[in-house]
């Protein structure tokens, strides 16, 4: 049986992965609903309002699950990671508390107005509440990413005599350059989840020949916004995020690229499996010198491999990190191709009748969720063996007196409870989809 530390890690990994299914969807949909409401306000056409109301219902269900699975995240810092919380709470507690004070109150007040106050608020008021929902959920995302960014690239702190980290500069914490790029990259990912979900359900309607008026709207909005987000995902956000990693986390870069040996003209691995014991990449398919260029904008630049990094500082799951990163990048690339093709068909006026393309859009639904999850796994496994990069090891952060058995018990409890939540979620969303937007 694994030790308490490993179970603590699994516990956090499982609960946060399940949780993030919902915020990525709601943050993406918040933007799209705002777009729908804006078009509705400008054109005065009722069908855009109906489309917005339909997505608001799915948003409401997802938001509820995001909230109930989110509360355990905040508490887990204290319950399972007490040594870390004790040391770093003075810094990251700030951003977490700000999320509660600034974002949750805003969201919880405007969500009710937004979902059920349309008649009372009038068109402008309702549009404004959709804007506030968008602002609230994206602000919440910012503060969480700022928290993670501090653990990835700690700034604006001082170390007190008792070894704890104390906040020195609020603005450094809030405007951490790592966090700015990570936020942009995370949000374009969330927008893609929203867009693919919207386009997939639109494609389902068109393929089934029901609610076609709305199927058109969903596919059009999903593809148009999605293609922009997919491109921004790669450049500049992904590119700059990668350069942040290469500047501040060389061990992470080497491990996620599977680069065991320091090289000039370092190749970019497209496929292959890392063979950690033998320190090589099995059956590789590589683009020569591309990694050097992407990292340093020079084909012959030297990129640090794992051989230059003390073994103690290697991420402890190199294979998983490598696969997560390659799944994220691979899917991101496929998304760009799919969405460019769909956008071109849309532009030519052929998309609604191209059944093969609609099939592809419909079948794409799960993949942005996978890509976002893989992206976060890249960030968090890549940070290992550090809890706060360079400052505090993960092994020094968990709660000292909680036995592995207790953590297993609560992990299994969460597994069971979340299985039920997942089934309920799918059932409710399925019912909304079958019910359709026409009656909304």
């Amino acid at each position, binding site marked *: 049986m694994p030790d308490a530390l490993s179970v603590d890690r699994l516990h956090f990994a499982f609960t946060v992965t399940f949780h993030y299914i919902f915020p990525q969807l709601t943050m993406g949909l918040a933007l799209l609903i705002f777009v729908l409401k804006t078009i509705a306000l400008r054109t005065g056409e009722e069908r855009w309002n109906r489309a917005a109301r339909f997505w608001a219902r799915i948003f409401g269900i997802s938001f509820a699950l995001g909230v109930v699975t989110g509360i355990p995240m905040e508490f887990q810092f*204290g319950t399972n990671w007490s040594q870390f*919380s004790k040391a770093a*709470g003075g810094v990251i507690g*700030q951003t977490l508390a700000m999320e509660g*004070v600034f974002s949750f*109150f805003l969201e919880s007040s405007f969500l009710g107005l937004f979902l059920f106050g349309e*008649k009372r608020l009038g068109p402008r008021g309702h549009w404004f509440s959709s804007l506030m929902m968008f602002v609230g959920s994206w602000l919440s995302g910012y503060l969480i990413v700022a928290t993670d960014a501090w653990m990835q690239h700690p700034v604006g702190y001082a170390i007190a005599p008792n070894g*704890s980290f*104390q906040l020195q500069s609020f603005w450094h914490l809030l405007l951490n350059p790592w966090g700015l790029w990570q936020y942009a990259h995370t949000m374009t990912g969330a927008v893609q989840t929203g867009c693919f979900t919207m386009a997939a359900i639109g494609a389902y309607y068109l393929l089934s020949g029901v609610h076609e008026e709305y199927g058109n709207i969903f596919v059009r909005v999903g593809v148009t916004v999605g293609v922009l987000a997919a491109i921004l995902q790669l450049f500049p956000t992904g590119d700059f995020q990668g350069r942040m990693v290469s500047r501040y986390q060389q061990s992470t870069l080497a491990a996620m690229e599977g680069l065991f040996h320091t090289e000039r003209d370092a190749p970019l691995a497209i496929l292959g499996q890392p063979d950690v014991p033998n320190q090589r990449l099995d059956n590789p398919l590589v683009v020569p010198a591309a990694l050097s260029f992407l990292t340093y904008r020079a084909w012959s630049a030297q990129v640090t491999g794992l051989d230059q990094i003390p073994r103690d500082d290697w991420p402890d799951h190199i294979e998983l990190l490598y696969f997560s990163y390659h799944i994220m990048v691979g899917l991101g690339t496929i998304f760009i191709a799919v969405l460019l093709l769909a956008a071109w068909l849309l532009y030519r006026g052929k998309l609604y009748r191209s059944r093969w393309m609609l099939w592809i859009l419909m079948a794409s639904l799960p993949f942005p969720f996978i890509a976002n999850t893989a992206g976060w796994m890249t960030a968090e496994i890549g940070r290992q063996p550090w809890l706060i990069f360079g400052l505090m090891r993960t092994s020094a952060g968990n709660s000292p007196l909680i036995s592995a058995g207790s953590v297993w018990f609560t992990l299994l409890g969460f597994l069971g409870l979340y299985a039920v939540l997942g089934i309920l979620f799918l059932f409710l969303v399925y019912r909304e989809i079958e019910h359709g937007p026409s009656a909304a």
Partner: protein
Amino acid sequence: MGTLWFCLVALMLAGYVVLDGFDLGVGVLHLWLARNEPERRVMLRSIGPVWDGNEVWLIAAGGTLYFAFPALYAEGFSGFYLPLMMVLWLLVIRGISVEFRSHIGGPIWSRLWDTGFAVASILLAIFYGVALGNVVRGVPLNGSGHFFEPLWTDFQPVGHTGILDWYTVIVGVVALAALALHGANWLAVKTEGELCNRALKWASALWWGVLACTAALTIISFQMLPQLFLSFRDRPWGIVFPVLALTGLFGIKWFNRLKLEGMAFASSCAYLIGMLTSVTFSLYPNVLPSSLNPFQALTIANSKASDHGLKIGLAWWLVGIVLACGYTIHTYRSFAGKLSVGEADGDEREHLATASP
């Protein structure tokens, strides 16, 4: 700075108990207080638009505690690991019970969601009381400042204590009674006619229970933990807190007799705030006493973040909390007024009742 934040966190927690307290109380009572589906809907509608906002106060208070007193957050949460996880599960169950009631209907499903909502509310009320009891009694903090409490040991409130002992169970029962009373008072404010009268009847019966429990708990606490007196001896002005609680308690009875439901509910708020502030005042400057050795207690001084960080926090916190109070007041004003059973359950109204984040 530490003392200021001690007061602010206590204030946020008191705000949480007063606000979420009444919707917990409604959850505790609704199985018995509502006789039919329309009545139950009215009860749920009375808390529907506000319960999730009330719960945000818990999250905000938790976050504030985290950055202001990192050591307390860390040691407290990890020490109360098992019950805290159960609280989280109960919050999930309670949340989905309210949320899904409007989505998956029918008599059997409604019954299931209602029972889930009631059971989770009852257990949460008891757990909160037990948690408070643990903080007052002290926990087995060892020399390195850690502790881990099992769910129970020998039910004795000394030495190697468990979460449950006869003392903390009593506090749990007091909390259940007090929050049920708070919920009954809220229902009296929000309903009319027969339902209002029934809520008043329940409030009247619960009041005697709360009175008896409060008296017993006070006597037991001071006998078992005479150090609680010290704060009041050193700072006699602190007597205002117990006086507030007592005034509130008798105010409930007085105003309910006069049929002034609003004032009775305000008195109930005063009672809860008075009780909580009395407890925090008597603990000061400790934040988590040790049941093993009084010198191993967590205090404001040894658990707070740096003064610089706390000053920075104060700047944004004040802005944020003014906004938060604004939203809260606005929400309550939008949904002010009594609800009637006969009122058309229009789609919008019905959804309003069950809206949640």
